């Protein structure tokens, strides 16, 4: 294998592993802020118990996000030196703003959030929780702005192959950014909701009849039920935006080899790059044209119009369907869950199991979605400006192979450890008897003299 393929594999591995954790923490931070607010307003100890459980999940998730993120910041230079040398004038300041405005904020206030509860007044602890949530969201803002600029670049000029920034407002708020940002934040909301619902369902399944997991399950299920239709809407608008700016990506997503009017929506097919056709199509006639152009006979440009400049079809095509399938499953689970929780105040056994099974469904949907958009940008690194091939390192392949194997092994172990630790935390919490602060204070009082005898 050559340095190009290995670098791509390694980058894909690192960024896939990394995104799992921010996807959770961005929204989990806001969930924690909500739990904290409810605790402040109601003074009911259950909200603080929920907070305590989930803040520990947050700490672990955040740590994994930080360490895998540090790795990313090195790889730009090690594996893609051409990216920074040619696009660094735009990418650099955006990354710089992310570090300056978001990373320090999150990391510093996380210390207060995790360890400061007895050291600072309650309002300050609440504020710290808010700042951490805002920091993670701000971080998403900058990095998604950069990613979106790579998809739909504008506000720059190219002189001698080097990109120079002309208009920062145009760069930051490039055409695909608002859609991608909304789509990602909603994805994070859904990932965190299903994680909270899933792990709470797991606690209930293991016999935890305390009020905390049930309340967390309700909060998360209702949130998911609201977010999923919003996400479908945001995804649809994102798709229309992509059709406008990156039609070759849409063609790959829909498996349209040749420009056609009234393109069918392919529910399933096996795209064949050799013969430029699809096998085993299961299709709804005219539906793709209708969704994308709002006209049953609308024209969809095919891959034939982007000869040599379009992404590989199969990975984009399949990932897109996995993401959609996951979204439909989420819609079903969230709405069923909401129905039962509102009507019966409990979930039937089978739905509990569905929720447990879907604890990490957000990861699958998020990864699939990112594969669609990132593979869909190929063969470019910055659409139409810089190809991925032109940015690659001249490092010896053996070195990359070594680092790739090390990362792969380490990430595999960490992923298993992460999931197992979360499950263990759930099981441990089942046996813990919850007592109120008064009861605890009472238990600490000395026994009366009579009892002491």
């Amino acid at each position: 294998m050559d340095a190009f393929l290995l670098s791509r594999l390694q980058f894909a591995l690192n960024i896939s592993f990394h995104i799992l954790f921010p996807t959770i923490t961005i929204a989990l931070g806001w969930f924690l802020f909500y739990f904290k607010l409810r605790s402040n307003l109601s003074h009911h100890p259950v909200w603080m118990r929920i907070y305590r459980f989930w803040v520990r999940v947050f700490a672990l998730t955040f740590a994994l996000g930080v360490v895998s993120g540090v790795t990313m910041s090195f790889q730009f230079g090690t594996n893609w030196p051409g990216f920074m040398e040619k696009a660094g004038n735009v990418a650099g300041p955006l990354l710089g703003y992310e570090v300056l405005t978001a990373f320090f904020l999150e990391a510093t206030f996380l210390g207060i959030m995790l360890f400061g509860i007895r050291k600072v007044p309650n309002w300050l602890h609440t504020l710290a929780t808010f700042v951490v949530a805002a920091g993670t969201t701000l971080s998403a803002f900058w990095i998604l702005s950069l990613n979106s600029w790579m998809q739909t670049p504008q506000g720059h000029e190219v002189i001698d192959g080097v990109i120079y920034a002309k208009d920062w407002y145009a760069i930051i708020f490039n055409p695909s950014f608002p859609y991608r940002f909304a789509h990602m934040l909603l994805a994070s909301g859904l990932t965190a909701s299903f994680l909270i619902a899933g792990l709470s369902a797991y606690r209930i399944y293991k016999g935890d009849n305390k009020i905390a997991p049930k309340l967390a399950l309700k909060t998360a299920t209702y949130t998911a039920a609201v977010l999923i239709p919003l996400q479908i809407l945001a995804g649809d608008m994102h798709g229309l935006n992509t059709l406008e700016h990156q039609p070759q990506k849409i063609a790959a997503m829909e498996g349209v080899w040749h420009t056609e009017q009234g393109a069918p929506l392919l529910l399933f097919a096996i795209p064949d790059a050799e013969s430029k056709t699809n096998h085993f199509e299961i299709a709804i006639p005219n539906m793709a044209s209708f969704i994308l152009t709002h006209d049953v006979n609308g024209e969809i440009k095919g891959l034939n119009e982007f000869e040599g400049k379009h992404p590989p079809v199969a990975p984009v095509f399949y990932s897109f369907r996995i993401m959609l399938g996951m979204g439909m499953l989420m819609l079903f689970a969230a709405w069923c869950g909401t129905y039962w929780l509102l009507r019966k105040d409990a979930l039937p056994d089978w739905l509990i199991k569905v929720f447990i099974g879907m604890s990490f469904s957000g990861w699958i949907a998020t990864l699939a979605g990112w594969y669609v958009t990132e593979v869909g940008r190929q063969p470019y690194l910055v659409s139409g400006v810089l190809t991925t091939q032109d940015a690659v390192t001249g490092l010896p392949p053996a070195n990359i192979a070594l680092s790739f194997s090390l990362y792969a092994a380490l990430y595999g172990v960490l992923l298993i450890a992460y999931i197992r630790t979360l499950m263990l935390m759930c099981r441990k919490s089942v046996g813990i008897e919850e007592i109120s602060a008064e009861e605890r204070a009472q238990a600490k009082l000395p026994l009366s003299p009579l009892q002491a005898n």
Partner: protein
Amino acid sequence: MPFESLSAEALGNIYVGLLGLAVLLYAILDGYDLGVGVLFPPRNETFKDDMVASIGPYWDANETWLVLAVGLLLIAFPQAHSAILQTLYLPATFMLIGLILRGVSFDFRAKVPQTKKRKWDTCFKYGSLLTTLSQGYMLGIWVTGLRTDWYAQGFALLAAFGVTAAYAFIGACWLILKTEGELQAKAFYWAKRCLMILAGGIIAVSFINLTLHENVRELWLESPLGLVLMLIPLACFGLLLLCGIVLQKLPKAGGRGEWLPFALALLVFVLCFTAFGISYYPYVVPGKLTIMDALSDPDSLRFLLVGVVVVVPCILLYTVWVYRIFAGKSEKLAYY
């Protein structure tokens, strides 16, 4: 465009200064928490919990200085970033693996059953050690101007141990400040040991440093500035000596002045860093790439400078503020 009046040279100097600040703060701040990791004893369970508690609220933010340093190198001096990190690809990979291992162990150890805690503790210690050794090695190779011959390798190995000793030293001083009783007594012992090794390391590195680059040798030995510059190593050894005396006397001082060793260690770091800075200015890769060779588009740097001017003082302020919140002896290990 704001800061229009700043020339490219001025921007280069500002950014190299910022980069220096980020590296120095990283070395001091993540230095002590990496040092605590290196000193992690294999057996004593209460020591381990207390040591982790002493760095708990800080390590995340400390590590962020590394991201800023690498980020600034990437943004302001992209050519230097790719030259350095491609030459140092494998040590950088080992450093990252070390950082990943120690960062996650820190959280995993608090959440897994007792039987598995040991494993994560081992990961924490050796992850920290792998990180400090790799960083020292990378520093060594960078100093030689990214040479890869045997002489440079030897020097880099020496630097690897020197940096590890320096981190362990400042880590021990941190523990003196943040802990009490038996662990603090142990920290005094560690600090004294590390001080010896560090002093030896600084002497060795300083002399070999003079053999590496012609212009550095001239600066220190032949230029009129050299005499003034010689005050830096002298001051450095004065401080180390003072620190040695303080470490002898403090255990009998009844808890007063426990901040002194850490403050002295911090000054030693600043001095060593200054000596490096003066030696290699205006190079970003010694002998190879100057600031101006590697500088990226000035307009982009001006755009980022707005954020730097506003945000960096805020970061410093809230960092100091958080250190004040958690001032005093660290509490028992507990998560909320």
